[in-house]
Each structure stands twice: as structure tokens, then as C-alpha cells.
């Protein structure tokens, strides 16, 4: 049970934060390209899912699974996108992503006058609090055999 990495995007597609813990394979492209690719894909999947849905849309796109990992997605009302890649044993972690947004992002980025909301997050406090929270989650293991 592990968490591989974590992205935060704002409404315009700027990657505000990226961190990884256990990433075993690099994507072979520069970080900027990867962020753009991730944002573009997620944006397209989201609108595709909403259009093709055969019933009323409640939450829209929430996660996708491959044979090796699962990608979880949460979007706040202000357009902030939180994306987390974990392994397959993890269930629905939307609530955790929501908590990251409300107790860590809002507290340490929005309330920090030195952090501009549409630029990369540089606050060390945010980094430490996020790290502590993630390491405290039951499905995070620092080492996978």
C-alpha cells in the first residue's frame, strides 16, 4: 500500500506543487512537459466523462486504474486540482484529498501572505505539514519490498 506521487494544479493549468515518494519509473520528459501533459489529460478526461455519462453526473471523474497504479482526482470549487497516484489496494481517498485541501492548502498557502495564489508554492511550512499528513495516512508505507 503506497503513495507514489502528488500534484496540485490551479485553475489555469499551472502546476503549483509536485512531490513524489516512491516513484520507480520516470516519464522520460522534462518536468514542465509532464505537468502540461498531466493537466491536459485530466482536463480532457473530465469533460469526456461528463459528456458521455449515461445518467446524471454527480461527482464526475474521480479516479482511473491501470494494472500497476491508481490515479485519484479531486477538484475544489475554486478550480484547484489535486491528483494523487497510489497503488491498487487503496480505496476511495477523495475525503483525504478534500482534507489536504481544507486543512493544509487553505491554512498554509491561502493564509500565508507571502504565497501568491497562482504561483508555485514555496512555503516550507506547507511542505512539512503535507509530508507529515501523508506519512500519517494508513496506506502510506515508506518502503515497498
Amino acid at each position, binding site marked *: 500500500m503506497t503513495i507514489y506521487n502528488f500534484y496540485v494544479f490551479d485553475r489555469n493549468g499551472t502546476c503549483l506543487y509536485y512531490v513524489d515518494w516512491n516513484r520507480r519509473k520516470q516519464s522520460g520528459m522534462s518536468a514542465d512537459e509532464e505537468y502540461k501533459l498531466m493537466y491536459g489529460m485530466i482536463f480532457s478526461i473530465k469533460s469526456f466523462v461528463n459528456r458521455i455519462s449515461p445518467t446524471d453526473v454527480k461527482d464526475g471523474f474521480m479516479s482511473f486504474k491501470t494494472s500497476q497504479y491508481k490515479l485519484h482526482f479531486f477538484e475544489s470549487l475554486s478550480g484547484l486540482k489535486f491528483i494523487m497516484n497510489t497503488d491498487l489496494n487503496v480505496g476511495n481517498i477523495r475525503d483525504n484529498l478534500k482534507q489536504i485541501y481544507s486543512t493544509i492548502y487553505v*491554512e*498554509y498557502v491561502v*493564509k*500565508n*501572505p*507571502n504565497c501568491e495564489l497562482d504561483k508555485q508554492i514555496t*512555503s*516550507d*511550512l506547507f511542505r*512539512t505539514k503535507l509530508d507529515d499528513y501523508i506519512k500519517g495516512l494508513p496506506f502510506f508505507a515508506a518502503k515497498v519490498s
Partner: protein
Amino acid sequence: MADEVLFDFLHMELVSYIHQSCSKEENSKDISISRLESIGFRVGQSLIERFTKDSARFKDELDTMKFICKEFWNAIYKKQVDNLRTNHQGVYVLQDNRFKFLTQISNGKQYMESAPKYLAFPCGLLRGALSNLGVNCIVTAEVSAMPACKFQIQIQRA
């Protein structure tokens, strides 16, 4: 529901607005800090009228300081001052280990340069409150490691 954040956000924006509007003049940092301090002074004066309207007279200066550390700080920052020291010669040092405006900024040394901006208004607040209680003083603040900060009050005897 979210009344505390209202004050935090308003203060953050006030600081950034004052700094922006003064940026064209010389000594812009000092001017902004003194403007924020005077705004705080006026607010402190009115606040103290409101908070002490039902209290008894203070026995002496130390009593006044204790009131400031407990009730006044509690009403504004929802906590009390952690440490009060004095040399009994008119100098008091108030230490707050988790000052409200600094807790979300950093936990140590990051963003240290911008910390004084957010202490100007609280200094003015203190000075205004004390002046309306009849104590004329000079208030300065210093930060060595966020979010702890110290306010130094120097009483001016006539």
C-alpha cells in the same frame, strides 16, 4: 462562523495595500510601517474603550500590563501572552510563542524578512490601547524564530 479569518485576511490585504501604495516614495518600507502603526494606534484606542467599559480601576502599571496580556490579547488573538517580563524600571517584554499573524507563514526562518510588516499593526494596537489607559509608551517588536515574537514596551515618564 469564520469571523477570525476575516480579520486575518483583512490585515494581510491592508499590509500589502499600504506597501504597494508607498512603493514609489523614498524609504517606502519605513513609511508603510509607520502608517500601519498609526492605523493600529487609532484602532487600539477605540478597542480599549470598548473592552474596559465595565472593569474596575487598575491598581498600578503592572496590573494594567497584566490586563493587556490576558483579556486584551485574548479578545483579539484568542489566546493569552505566554510570558511577561519586566525590569520594574518601565520596560516590559511580552512574549507570544505562537503569534496569530505568523503561525501560517512559517515555522522557523523562511520568510523572515517579511515578518516585521505584519507586526506593525499589532504594535500600534498596543500603543493605542496603553495610551488611552493613560500610559504613554513606545512599542517595538522583534522576531527571532517564527511563529514566536516579542513586543517590547518602554514606558515614557513625563
